[in-house]
């Protein structure tokens, strides 16, 4: 561990550089770190992916089971997103049930996928009110170097795109699994873009040391059409309305760029 004085000095430097429009790692204020996506890395999962966002590393796996629909949505399959901040990913993560950070992370990713209708949940219904497919998306943070939300949202979507559903048929109320797989239909590609407010400036894709000094962050998820489907403000600071509108504009542009880079735009 570096001494606190060194940390303070570094934080001051990060903050001062940002006010001059520069960042300590050489990026511009609107630049993402390098994004790498690998899919199909866990054979036993129905879908899986690993995302590297600079040094931040997140894995996501999809498992599918038969289950019951929720009473208020009898015609829809069930989507469940969970996130684990695994202790091996950071000295600040501890074993135990998900804390508020893990829960918030999972719920923000969940809202992006759900509200953009990325998955047609009605197609996962087998027998209305009785039997549906249940999708479990489990996000596994492997290395924490900031901006877990964007990395996790990319990993979750990449894993869903990679997902193959086992073939099955219903015979007299009984479900029989048949050989072969069908890809899970994906209707939309929501992309989450997080901006941090440091020194009254907005910076895209904050890394860990920037997150430690930011006043607040805002995550904006947009869909293929450029519409906004989820927002989450976090941190103990605030944004002015003007900053929020600016963040929306940046997030829409960045999402288009990321979709193009990953081959998700048609």
């Amino acid at each position, binding site marked *: 561990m570096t001494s606190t004085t060194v940390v303070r000095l570094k934080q001051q430097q990060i903050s001062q550089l940002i006010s001059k429009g520069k960042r300590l790692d050489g990026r511009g204020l609107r630049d993402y770190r390098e994004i790498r996506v690998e899919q199909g890395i866990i054979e036993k999962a129905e879908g899986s992916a690993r995302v590297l966002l600079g040094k931040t590393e997140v894995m996501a796996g999809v498992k599918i089971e038969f289950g019951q629909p929720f009473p208020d949505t009898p015609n829809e399959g069930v989507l469940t997103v969970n996130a684990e901040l695994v202790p091996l990913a950071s000295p600040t993560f501890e074993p135990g049930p998900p804390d508020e950070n893990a*829960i*918030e992370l999972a719920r923000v990713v969940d809202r992006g996928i759900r509200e953009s209708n990325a998955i047609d949940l009605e197609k996962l219904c087998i027998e209305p009110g009785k039997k549906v497919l249940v999708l479990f998306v489990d996000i596994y943070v492997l290395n924490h170097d900031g901006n877990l939300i964007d990395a996790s949202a990319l990993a979750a979507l990449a894993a869903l795109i990679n997902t193959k559903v086992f073939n099955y048929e219903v015979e007299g109320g009984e479900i029989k699994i048949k050989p072969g797989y069908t890809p899970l239909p994906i209707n939309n590609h929501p992309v989450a873009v997080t901006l941090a407010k440091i020194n009254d400036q907005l910076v895209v894709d904050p890394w860990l040391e920037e997150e430690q000094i930011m006043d*607040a962050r805002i995550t904006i998820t947009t869909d293929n059409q*450029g519409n906004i*489907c989820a927002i989450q403000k*976090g941190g103990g600071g*605030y944004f002015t309305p003007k900053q929020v509108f600016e963040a929306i504009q940046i997030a829409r542009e960045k999402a288009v760029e990321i979709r193009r880079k990953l081959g998700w735009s048609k």
Partner: protein
Amino acid sequence: MSSKPERLIDEKGLRLDGRKPDELRPIKIEVGVLANADGSAYIEQGKNKILAAVYGPKELHPKHLALPDRMVLRCRYHMAPFSVQERKSPAPSRREIELSKVIREALEPAIFLEYYPRTATDVFIEVLQADGGTRCASITVASLALADAGIPMRDLVAACSVGKVDGTIVLDLMDVEDKVGEADLPLAYMPNLDAITLLQMDGNLTPEEFEKAVSLAIEGCKKIYNMQREALKARYVSVKEVEE
């Protein structure tokens, strides 16, 4: 389960409870309602009934959680089992844990945390009846409880939700509108600082609709802010009159 209404806005442009799109539900606020708490407040917003209590600043245990340069704000948003149609388990749900976090982060910017290093203040919010928009009403009432506790603040935080139902942007969603509507956007705002301290959204909005929604929410917050000030005056100015 109640059946979904076919439309949420009638041909006259009125909502299910007769409100216009930019109209708030009736709001009743009372400050200083609990004897034991350092500060407390109660709000009724439509059918929402919410109590908030503040304990602190006080010593923090365990001590290693204390911060050398500021107070720790802790917040618990909790719904009573009888507050909704189907009984809610009293154990904190994932939703309640997330809301406790975002409510805390909505209140923090208002408080001079640095005035009370090494201490903690607890904000307890109990939703006694819920009918949509409880996180916003919770912020509104909790910021009054903080003020009632005498904690130095930059401004009161007022909060209000907006949403899209039947293609129209409307203010202060009630439960049906939230569930059936196309978008929900809760927002908390400090008028004196022009600061948004809570912003969430789910649904689908174009950037134009979003800008309209945010301005409508801010207008709503300003109206609620005036009611908050009146509630504080009713508590403290009227006491003075009695003394005279």
